[in-house]
């Protein structure tokens, strides 16, 4: 298996790289589509702004790479911003921009800002820390062996809303309930950081590499 980690200047890839090394999964980091096209699985991480991330992807020709990879049915693991910008659009806009940020459009849906209140006052945003993820299909190979309701590590201010409810795999409550995991064809997307979520997180990453979609 050849695993490529997409580098598009969107946060720290080091923790993803180290988690894969710990799981003895051979992976290379690259921002060049000509290298990444040789991979048979991609990890698409990311921290940061949706508009900046889309800009960086387009500048490197990585948007096309991802679209082609997805159409060929090769597995992609989207993490955090990487789980958001596979949707049609995001409300996380560039400064002065009126329209939502146009994203990759691999999966029908949009991203909205987290809002709401908590028992002790206004909701703190970003949603930072450990929170439970309820799996809608406990037998799915991606979550095999992991109890529904396990806590994972989150850091984000926007959440995903997918149009097709049948693709949802994880839901989480923070101010409101929202989607934190979905699977579309060979694309698996998690809002939280499995590479920073302890042993259960590592198990989730390992499951992705066992998965034969």
């Amino acid at each position, binding site marked *: 298996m050849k695993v490529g980690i997409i580098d598009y200047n969107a*946060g*720290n890839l*080091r*923790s993803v790289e*180290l*988690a894969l*090394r*710990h799981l003895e999964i051979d992976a290379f980091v690259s921002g060049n589509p000509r290298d990444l096209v040789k991979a048979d699985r991609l990890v698409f991480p990311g*921290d*940061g702004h949706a508009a900046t991330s889309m800009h960086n992807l387009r500048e490197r020709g990585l948007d096309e790479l991802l679209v082609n990879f997805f159409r060929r049915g090769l597995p992609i693991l989207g993490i955090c911003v990487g789980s958001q910008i596979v949707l049609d659009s995001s409300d996380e806009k560039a400064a002065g921009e009126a329209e939502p940020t146009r994203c990759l459009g691999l999966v029908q849906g949009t991203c909205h800002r987290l809002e709401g209140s908590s028992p*002790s*006052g*206004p909701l*703190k*945003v*970003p*949603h*930072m*820390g*450990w*929170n*439970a993820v309820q799996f809608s299909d406990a037998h799915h190979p991606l979550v095999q062996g992991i109890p529904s309701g396990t*806590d994972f*590590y*989150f*850091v984000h201010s926007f959440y995903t809303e997918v149009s097709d409810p049948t693709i949802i795999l994880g839901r989480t*409550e*923070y101010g409101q309930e929202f989607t934190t995991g979905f699977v579309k064809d060979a694309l698996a997307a998690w809002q939280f950081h499995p*590479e*920073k*979520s*302890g*042993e*259960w*997180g*590592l198990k989730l990453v390992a499951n992705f590499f066992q998965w034969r979609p």
Partner: protein
Amino acid sequence: MLKKRVIVCLDVKEGKTTKGIKFQDNVDLGDPVAMAETYYRQGVDELVFYDITASAEKRGIMLDVVARVAEKIFIPFCVGGGLSTAEDIRRVINAGAEKVSLNSPAVKNPELIREAARLYGSQSVVLGMDALADPSLPSGYRVVINGGRTPTEWDALEWALRAQSLGAGEIVLNSIDADGTKAGYELKLTRLISSRVSIPVVASGGAGTPEHLREVLQEGQADAALVASMVHYGTYTVRQIKGYLRQKNVSVREA
């Protein structure tokens, strides 16, 4: 539901931890990486490494510690102490730390917070703040720097709000009055800051028993509680602390 976090802080001097003489489990006493692994296995939610190395020439040792920790533990961790330029911050993040904690240098140069947030995102920028009770200020607390020795002009609440607007994503709030007393966290200060900012607040200073954590997480409205000597000296394990909190209906992560 978002869980309350239990965070362990390790002071590191020239690559060695300065506490932990009664540490159990056969760990190499004084090795921050071995101690981090032990706390990771006990279910700690996050770790903070505070570099107290005095000489600038020996600061590089910390980067090696950070890199080795990142290979072994798969939870977020923060590094603080002696970070005064964007270049210092870059080195620590690239070595594998999730977050950096900025304390005295941020007071001397608030733009450092903005710069760090621009480069790495607010989620990576923690304001470390030492506060001392001072009835002459509006909030009743004054920001002090250089380990509590030097008073500043800043009111604690005013500085917390200012740091938030500059891009800090979290505050580690240390009470100089409570620090080292083992008599409990400063609840009034913690509640004051946590209820007024919109970013998470980590309470620090004064922890001696698991009940102290319950108090500050429930009554003090802290999002997380920092512990050091109560676990380093083997008085409690992280697992025992979290077990107690769970029993008292504080929602904590099971690991």
